[in-house]
């Protein structure tokens, strides 16, 4: 039985003092200040859950919110889309519940993008502007849907404005997670990342690094290196999950 190869890293970048991002792979969670890429070989006999949560920068306790969100759904086995959506809603409530404990935590929030690899299906659910991409046949397709304001014709999106997050407001507000389910093929690669990656590197570059690297670990290392070289103004988190190619397992 072949394993799903997952490489994850989170890093505070070059400008921020703290890392308010959190990554989680099959329940292993990290918010390390300057993390190293870590490689997991996960047996896909049960659904594999990976996620990236990006605590709202400049807000109170962004890191706390992202860790809470990650903890709230990082170690569950999700079998269908509705379950994931429900878990994201529950994580939203957890963040608000935590907020109630201490007035200083009021308004803390986090984005989240969750990927569940369940057999031959992949479920992607997101709230906020952390992204999930599928790399197949050298084309990188975005599966997540950004919660950003639709710009006026001819104008660019304001990257810093997010229309919904887990938490993020003073009073409890529900969320409408975006969910998509796609079939998984041998050789597919799923990239989860915070906007610290996509704001620094153009999609063309990310695509080229993913398609050009020999293995997921090299790809993540290169992406992190490139982001840091580009200035890394925000925390950067990358999770890359690679489904094994057909020829790696039994020949089909």
């Amino acid at each position, binding site marked *: 039985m072949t394993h799903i190869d997952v490489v994850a890293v989170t890093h505070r970048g070059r400008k921020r003092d703290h890392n308010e991002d959190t990554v989680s792979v099959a329940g292993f969670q990290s918010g390390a200040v300057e993390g190293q890429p870590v490689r997991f070989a996960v047996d896909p006999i049960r659904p594999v859950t990976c996620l990236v949560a990006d605590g709202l920068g400049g807000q109170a306790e962004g890191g706390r919110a992202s860790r809470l969100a990650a903890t709230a759904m990082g170690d569950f086995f999700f079998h269908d889309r509705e379950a994931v959506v429900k878990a994201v809603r529950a994580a939203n409530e957890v963040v608000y519940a935590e907020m109630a404990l201490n007035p200083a935590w009021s308004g803390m929030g986090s984005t989240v993008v969750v990927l569940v690899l369940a057999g031959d299906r992949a479920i992607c659910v997101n709230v906020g502007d952390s992204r999930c991409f*599928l790399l*197949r*046949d050298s*084309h*990188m*397709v*975005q*599966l*997540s*849907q950004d919660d950003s304001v*639709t*710009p*006026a*014709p*001819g*104008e*660019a*999106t304001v*990257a810093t404005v997010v229309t919904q997050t887990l938490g993020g407001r003073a009073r409890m507000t529900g969320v409408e997670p*975006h969910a*998509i389910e*796609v*079939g998984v093929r041998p050789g597919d690669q799923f990239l989860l990342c915070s906007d610290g990656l996509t704001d620094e590197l153009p*999609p*063309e570059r990310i*695509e080229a690094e993913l398609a050009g690297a020999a293995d997921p670990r090299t790809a993540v290392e290169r992406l992190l290196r490139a982001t840091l070289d580009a200035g890394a103004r925000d925390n950067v988190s990358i999770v890359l999950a690679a489904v094994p190619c057909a020829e790696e397992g039994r020949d089909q």
Partner: protein
Amino acid sequence: MTDEGPVRGMASVPGTVRDQIAAPGTTRDAAGAPGTTRDAAGAPGTTRDGSGAPGTTRDGAPGTTRDGGPDPEPFARVNLPPTLRRRYEYVRELGAGGEADLLLVRDLSSGEECVVRLYRRQDLPLDEEKLNRLRTADPRHLIALRDYGRGDGYVWEILEYAPYGSLEQLMGRYPAPWPADKVLDVFDQLAPAITYANSLGMVHRDIKPGNVLIRSMNPADLVLADFGLTKFIEATHAHGTNSRTSAYAPPEAIAGHTSKWSDWWSLGIIMFELLTGRNPFQNPDGSWFNEQVITSILISREISVSGIADDHWRLLVRGLLTRVPEKRWGPEQTAAWRAGGKPPVADPEPVRDPGRPITRSNATFVFEGVGYNDPLALAAALRHDWGGGRRLLAGRAVKAPTYLALKDWMTKHERAEAVQALNDGVDERPERGLMQVIMALDPQAPPEFNGRRLDDENLRALTRDAIANQPAARQILGQIYEDGILTICDDTPGCAGYALLDDRWHRNVEAAQARLQQVGVTISQGDLQTLRMQLLVASYAGQDHLFAEPAAEAARNPEALSQPWFRTLVADRPAPEHEAPWHAALMLTAPVAAQQTRDQHVAAERRRLEEEQRRIAQSRANMDRISVPLGLVCGVIAFCAPPAGAIAGPAAVYFGVRARRTRHKAASTWAIGLGGVGFVFAAITIMVYLNNLVNGS
């Protein structure tokens, strides 16, 4: 009916334009060597465009022409046939073409100048009934056919001579746009003329400014020319057309259909040209679109009349330029229009201004972080950020959110063709889909693939770059092949006939690959690219033998020819029209075959050397085997017969050493031992003997 300006202008510079253009023996007529189809159709001065119409009728005023009318003894290349010489006096030659000569003559009885058109053949079928109708036709509308006949090796017709030339020449001198009242003069002359011709059951099929002759300027009197024998010539020849003819032909003429409605379309184009100053198929610099582009536009597009400012005029031109012949304006509608009415225009398709497509929705689509609600702007953005567009279309396979948003947006903007392009797309070919979407969003833009324009000129440049080994060009050309991009571009501006080209290209490549497979040659990716490039070049019409020479060269390669499969390939010559893939296969496999031959030679040489070495080793081994008994015998001799040991001893040692290489090690040891001891004995014996000899003496 008056046209003061032109009249004066015309009188003051009579015939200059025409004579410049159409003096006999100048370019056009020179090109019309006898027997070429083109000139057949365009017997001088008749059907061809104005420039090629030396003087049937529109010759300048006599006496100012280059060929010197007043010369009492002009050189006459063509003589009047005897039949005609009795009735007419030769004045001068007006021109010649592939089929006919034109002479200006004077009627001996009336003194009137006429034009004689002499067809240099007698086998022309003459529709007597029609010609008689023409001869008796109302001269107000059609140029008069005075007589016709056949004899002395010719068929001839006598035509009225119109001294003021054609409408085309007038337009050359007084460039359009013309004032409305002058355009109206032309309309008032042409519409009744067409109505009249139709009423006689005649369709001109080729009305254009060059075929509208000016009988008088003040009042304006225009007549239609070339209803006569030239029509028979056209009917008996598959005639080539040119841009200036196609530019006035209705859409249905492309399929070869003409009807009484056809001439009204031509009138519409003439009106358009007079009102806007430019033919719809003319570039701003006055050059004409090429034939194929005109055809593709006629097939697929509306002609935009937005350049005509006046509503009433625009209505007329829309009515006349109705694509469906039966719904096109004819005699009744034009008459109603002239009377100030507004007959309905049937064409249901809205007249689209290429600059401003109809946008009915405010929906905004976000592409790479920027909002768009204008299809043209989005098309431009997709062309500019090709990678982003490719990823967007790659989302089709998984119904990615951005892909669905694009589809939704196009539906809201009523871009049915673009939505259709998405529906018809292929998941594995996102760039093909992208190309189709861009073209559906902005149909007027020249097709562009991954930053490279694909119109004829640019495609050839791309091919040149690819042949010059530019990796980017090679890769793009490869994608264009795999995604069938040329077919998508078919019949867009500058891409006429691309579907056919693409089809030939693919069939050629597939045929070549089949041949390679037949002979069992696998080629590298680079060779495959080269093969495709070469066959693209050879797929252009008339280029299928472009590589015949290098292919023949390759087929003569003696090294390659020693491969039987290559000989089979060389011998298996296909039909001439399918030779291009064969050429490509030969050129590609000849080096492979030659290399195989060289490899075989090297292998044979290596085998020969190995064989020789084995033979040497064999003989040595045989020797070694014989050495075992020989060594033993010599050893025994050396041991037993001491004096002989002097020779047998070393021999035994030698054979013994050789015998060590066999498995008889003990025998070898014995031979060496006996030989050695025998030699020592022999030495002692000899020394004793010598000692005795010395002492004894």
